[in-house]
């Protein structure tokens, strides 16, 4: 019934781009059908806009006026030296390395030393070409417009599995590198599985190589399934300097007694929307989500999460900290659903923004939907400026005001960064955050 709805320019572009690209995208048979269905589902809804409750503050229809063309596999060769430079503080971390260049898996740049009995790694594109039946079930049909677009356009990504009771012993660094010198649109899909009793520290680092175009669009979907008693640390880092639009969706399911610790650093994209969807699937699950969003100028960073306590005895913690300067707009929307059966749920959520300018804006919308009676749930939000007394104290010790402000801001986000369990990763994230604070 919606097919006759007037389309925006961007929506028409997306349809045209899909029609033009469909042939070349990996996969035939059910994969093509899946893509076509997803495109139709997207077309029916169109780009999310402010009258869609979850997109109230991030009107994509308004903001996404022009959609860059889908990225083509680049002929440009990327050396590991180029890559290391782009990776900055992540380069030195002892990690398994998986690299996607402009949305395409690079076997040359990826280095995974773990035994196949520990980690199973496949390129999504390769598997879409083979199109085994089991793969079809990995693509959920109800992720909303952004996920539908991702399904329609996904060029590549990884299927990564840590086998039962295994521990790779070092973090897995999943690098999303952009090199294209023309603005392009990327759609990457990752499917991660941490089997029962296994452990994984996954770091998704979004980096741009020297000379990469400004104004790119990334749509990255990462689905994580954590088995019973398994632990997954999932860290995302985006420190942008290329005015990009970044749409990222994490959808994570936790099994019985599973632990999930997520962290997202989002620094200076033109626009970022981080969707995080968590489902507790088994009792005893533990969730600890945190993040730091740093924006200045007219940048816009939206973190929207839904934590679904579908079963009893699970614990969820969220702590998101924003530093907002200039006319930047930071948004935090956190919905906690406690289903009727989910007794003994323990949920706490906090979002805090530090405002460095009177023109910056912070919107916080916590929502508790509680249908069980024996639960402990709470949320809070604060919006503050740099504490004048602390600033005076620092200055009275000779510390100049700009250094003192940076130091106090650092300590503000430090509380979230400190939640990152892996020391090397924590330090790398800290370095990027400090770099951001010290650039003006």
């Amino acid at each position, binding site marked *: 019934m919606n097919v006759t709805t007037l389309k925006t320019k961007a929506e028409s572009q997306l349809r045209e781009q899909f029609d033009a690209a469909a042939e070349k995208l990996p996969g035939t048979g059910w994969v093509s059908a899946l893509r076509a269905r997803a495109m139709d589902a997207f077309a029916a809804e169109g780009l999310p806009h402010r009258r869609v409750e979850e997109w109230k503050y991030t009107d994509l229809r308004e903001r996404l006026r022009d959609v860059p063309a889908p990225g083509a596999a680049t002929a440009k060769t990327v050396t590991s030296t180029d890559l290391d430079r782009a990776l900055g503080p992540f380069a030195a971390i002892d990690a398994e390395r998986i690299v996607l260049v402009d949305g395409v898996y690079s076997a040359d740049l990826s280095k995974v030393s773990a035994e196949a009995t520990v980690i199973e790694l496949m390129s999504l594109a390769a598997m879409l070409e083979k199109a085994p039946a089991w793969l079809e079930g990995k693509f959920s049909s109800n992720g909303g417009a952004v996920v539908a677009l991702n399904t329609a356009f996904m060029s590549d990504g990884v299927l990564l599995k840590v086998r039962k009771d295994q521990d790779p012993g070092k973090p897995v660094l999943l690098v999303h590198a952009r090199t294209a010198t023309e603005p392009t649109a990327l759609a990457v899909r990752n499917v991660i599985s941490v089997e029962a009793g296994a452990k994984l520290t996954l770091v998704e680092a979004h980096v741009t190589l020297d000379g990469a175009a400004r104004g790119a669009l990334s749509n990255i979907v990462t689905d994580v399934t954590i088995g019973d008693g398994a632990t997954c640390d999932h860290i995302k880092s985006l420190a942008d300097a290329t005015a990009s639009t970044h749409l990222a969706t994490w959808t994570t399911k936790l099994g019985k007694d599973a632990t999930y610790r997520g962290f997202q650093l989002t620094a200076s994209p033109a626009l970022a929307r981080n969707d995080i969807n968590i489902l507790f699937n088994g009792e005893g699950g533990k969730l600890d989500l945190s993040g730091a969003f740093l924006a200045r100028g007219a940048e816009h960073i939206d973190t929207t999460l839904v934590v679904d306590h579908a079963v009893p005895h699970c614990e969820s913690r969220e702590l998101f900290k924003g530093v907002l300067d200039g006319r930047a707009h930071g948004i935090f929307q956190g919905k906690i659903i406690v289903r009727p059966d989910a007794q003994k749920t323990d949920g706490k959520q906090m979002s805090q923004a530090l405002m460095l300018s009177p023109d910056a804006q912070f919107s916080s919308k916590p929502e508790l939907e509680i249908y069980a009676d024996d639960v402990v749930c709470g949320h809070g939000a604060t919006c503050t400026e740099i504490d004048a007394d602390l600033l005076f104290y620092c*200055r*009275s*010790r*000779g*510390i100049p005001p700009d*250094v003192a402000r940076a*130091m106090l801001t*650092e*300590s503000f986000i430090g509380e979230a960064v400190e939640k990152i369990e892996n020391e090397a990763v924590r330090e790398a994230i800290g370095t990027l955050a400090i770099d951001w604070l010290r650039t003006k």
Partner: protein
Amino acid sequence: MLEIKNLHARIADDGAEILRGIDLVVPKGEVHAIMGPNGSGKSTLAYVLAGRDDYEVTEGDIFWNGESILEMGPDERAAKGVFLAFQYPMEIPGVATMTFLRAALNAVRKKRGLKELTTPEFMKLVRAKAAELGVSDEMLKRPLNVGFSGGEKKRMEILQMSVLEPTLCVLDETDSGLDIDAIRIVSEGATKLRGPDRAMLVITHYQRLLNYIVPDKVHILAKGRIQKTGGKELALELEKSGYADFTGKAA
């Protein structure tokens, strides 16, 4: 030399006048004590010296080494050698004490035209001074003052002072909250800094501290003005007679 001339200051927010014409001279090499009843303006004077902008100077001036410091920000004053040991030191969550000390020392050294210390030089310096004041390595790693006891915070103030080597030291009730041994340790720390190039202003309620840091002069501050100045025996007199003489008169 510190010269405070007819200093009037009020609270910036509500305009209430707290300092009502302070005149005070502390020559280099001397230690002066300021005593006075609660709420008489002692901390206000200390803050105004350090440059806190909650207070507005409406009249008078402050000279340090012949130069007016009123127009200088707190950090510039610190670079010129002004140091205030706070009555209530502040907690800075998330900033390790060592990191803070280092930022402060580097900043003042830079302003004073000295080169930055290397990490080993800095660590050595701080560890040595910390040991003298009974500040543990563990405390140096913790966020500044967070969870420190009242006495530990005061020691930390003196540690900062001895690291930054200021030439005008203002100690605001550094002795309150300290146990008897700590008063001795902290006073020894402060006394070490006594020297021909330094002036010290020690605010206290207790004569005990002045047994350790023997003052050249004692001033009584009440109702926003210096009411009386005398030698160290004035502190002893006060122990007996209290402040009644000073709070009653001089409206």
